[in-house]
């Protein structure tokens, strides 16, 4: 009886899930498997030859330019993640602990509005702010503080980091906020009652309990940042490519699909490995999650 009911339930569930599942299978899984296959094939003129090879991966791993671009992507994404999460934590803490409950929704709304406005225009506006004749430079020269426009603030890695840290801010705030909201406030009172200072209570109770949110926020920022195409293009002026730009060039401009596929697969693997290591390092915080 119980088994029959389970089977009926399983069947109903599988039937219901099949339309979105097949959609994801055809539009996502099949294409990703295709580039995985391509990455082991040989590039011919105007076509992909069906000959198995590891040369693409050899080239990806040995080419100095690939190494520079890959390292840059990882470093930029790492810095962006750290900066975004570190800046986001206090604001999430503020909204969760200091803002009156009925005003929390308004604060979240305020935080998310900039995120929903055109990503391209936001990125471009940072160029307007940081540029040679930009807001900062024209204001500073106008006020007579500097004579020559500052050139070190645009077309470099710093400006890419700043732009991305701005673009992904809400992604970091929301998971941390959710984790903070889940904390049982009586635990904090217990900590204080047992003689801990406020700082120690934060360090030994609040922070460990928030770590699942911090870990989620870090991954949510890190993963798309690595694959960002627009910001290096617009802010970096195309001179400071990241891995996404390189994949695009190989796939389309140079029409070397196998090498482009190998780059994409390597990037995905790098992201996956780093994410797993990151999760592993934080495993003691994640274990108690219900």
């Amino acid at each position, binding site marked *: 009886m119980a088994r029959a009911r389970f089977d009926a339930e399983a069947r109903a569930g599988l039937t219901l899930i099949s339309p979105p599942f097949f959609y994801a299978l055809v539009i996502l899984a099949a294409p990703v498997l295709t580039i995985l296959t391509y990455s082991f094939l040989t590039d011919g003129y105007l076509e992909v030859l069906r000959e198995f090879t590891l040369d693409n991966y050899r080239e990806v791993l040995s080419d100095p330019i690939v190494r520079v671009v890959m390292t840059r992507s990882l470093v930029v994404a790492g810095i962006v993640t750290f900066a975004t999460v570190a800046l986001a934590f206090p604001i999430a803490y*503020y909204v969760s602990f200091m803002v009156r409950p009925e005003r929390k929704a308004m604060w979240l709304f305020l935080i*998310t*509005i900039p995120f*929903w406005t055109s*990503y*391209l225009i936001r990125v*471009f506006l940072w160029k307007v702010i940081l540029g040679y004749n930009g*807001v900062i430079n024209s*204001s500073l020269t106008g006020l007579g503080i500097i004579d020559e426009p500052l050139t070190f603030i645009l077309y470099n890695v710093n400006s890419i980091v700043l732009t991305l840290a701005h673009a992904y801010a809400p992604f970091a705030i929301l998971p941390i906020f959710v984790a903070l909201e889940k904390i049982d406030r009586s635990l904090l009172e217990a900590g204080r009652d047992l003689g801990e200072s406020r700082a120690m209570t934060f360090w030994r109770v609040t922070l460990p309990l928030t770590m699942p949110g911090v870990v989620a926020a870090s991954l949510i920022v890190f993963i798309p940042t690595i*694959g960002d195409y627009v910001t290096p293009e617009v802010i970096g002026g195309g001179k400071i490519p990241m891995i996404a730009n390189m994949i695009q060039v190989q796939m389309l401009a140079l029409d070397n699909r196998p090498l482009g596929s190998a780059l994409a697969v390597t990037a995905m693997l790098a992201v996956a490995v780093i994410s797993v290591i990151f999760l592993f390092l934080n495993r003691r915080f994640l274990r108690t999650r219900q």
Partner: protein
Amino acid sequence: MSIHSNGRGLQIYAVAYLLFLYAPIVLLPLFAFNSGTIIAFPLQGFSLQWFDEMWGNATLRRALTNSLTIAVASSVLATCLGIFAARASTRFEFPMKGGIMGLIMLPMVLPEIIVAMSLLVVLLGMGVQLSLLTVILGHTLIAMPYGIAILSTAFSSLDRSLEEAAYDLGETKWSAFRLVTLPLVMPGIISSLLISFTISLDEFIIAFFLAGNEPTLPTYIFSQLRFPRAIPVIMALGTVLVVLSIVLLAIGEYFRRRGNARIGGSATGGLM
């Protein structure tokens, strides 16, 4: 309360942080209504000419039509598929549930360039002509997980006994779903439609690679950023888009809260 006594510093930080978040967006209307052709301070004077030019721009209008077509189609598709997934994952236990849901939600954590490139390679390999349709395929895929996240909240807070009561009163599975469940999750459906619509409208990478020669709003904006002369019009366009997305978000938020109130939830959270 002792917790609130030490909040002054954090409050100042919170305001500074909001300023940082809004800094670029505040510039939009400044330059959109500025009569100068160069995007720099000091501002010249008040002018509506950039809005005029924007209105008369045929390519821009085509891009807008394309973007709206894509956004409507993919938000409807993503929400319909999302309803299936949210209903299945919140109501039923079935084998491989984690793996299947993981695959469906994967686009949330997969760099978009990977989605765009792999789909492009396959479509080109099959000889499919790139068009608005191919963009819709991609946008539906990436909007679906966000729709599911919202719809799952709506479905999981449903009281199951309401459906059982409907069965007991002689409704079939489908009519109970249509008459009881659907109205209760309707606010979630509307939020999902709005969020998917907004995601699609703003999505650049997939549209850039999969649209062929058709412009969409983001790809049109991208193509214009290289020309300094075109920037004021883009600022005007950006201003309109900001106002539009605030209105859409406010509508979405209203429906979400109304839905939460109806099922007895709190007003916090949302958009997650």
